[in-house]
């Protein structure tokens, strides 16, 4: 596709359940980022990948959150034992570089997670 694709666009789950959010970056982009955006807030960094490896996972709030990118393209953000406080829009972005020379990230439309 032409842009970053995220699925599902909306996910409603119950407290304690497991969820997976998928991101398909722009073809050829080597860097992939996950951000979380709560209502009325700016995007908050979670993790970024350079290729298959997590280059920086310092933004993951706790060990219930995990992300993978096994083949260096599609990434999945996994949240275990969801809590109401996890409700937010999860944004994925990709970049054609390591991000060292440009700040431009190409964002998807996000996955809105609601934990009841």
């Amino acid at each position, binding site marked *: 596709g032409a842009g*970053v694709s995220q699925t599902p666009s909306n996910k409603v789950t119950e407290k304690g359940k497991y969820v997976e959010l998928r991101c398909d970056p722009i073809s050829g982009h080597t860097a992939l*980022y996950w*951000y979380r955006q709560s209502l*009325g*807030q*700016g*995007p*908050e*960094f979670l993790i*970024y990948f350079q290729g298959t490896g997590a280059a*920086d996972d310092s*933004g993951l709030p706790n060990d219930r959150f995990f992300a993978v990118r096994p083949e260096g393209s599609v990434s999945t953000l996994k949240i275990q034992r969801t809590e109401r406080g996890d409700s937010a829009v999860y*944004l994925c*972005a990709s970049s054609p570089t*390591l*991000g*060292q020379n*440009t*700040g*431009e*990230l190409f*964002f*998807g*439309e*996000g996955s809105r997670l609601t934990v009841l």
Partner: protein
Amino acid sequence: QQQVKQSPQSLIVQKGGISIINCAYENTAFDYFPWYQQFPGKGPALLIAIRPDVSEKKEGRFTISFNKSAKQFSLHIMDSQPGDSATYFCAAKATPLVFGKGTRLSVIA
């Protein structure tokens, strides 16, 4: 720890007026300062960006002013239009990109 402080939280401007949004930062390692625009239900999209060795950058109606000594930068939208109504985020990069909390701009006719 909020690395980029943005103000105001919301802004209402008359059509044709100038919209001004301000940001301040602390980390001198930041080397790139973009502004992103976000419409409801969409992801943020790059609007304009500047590097710290430049004091001003203009693209059409959008201008970034950068004050390195004060560690502040601002976005000016000239001749604001209703289509500019969106949320604007300043950001700064040392990898990864860190965002301000956003300014919701409403341009009214």
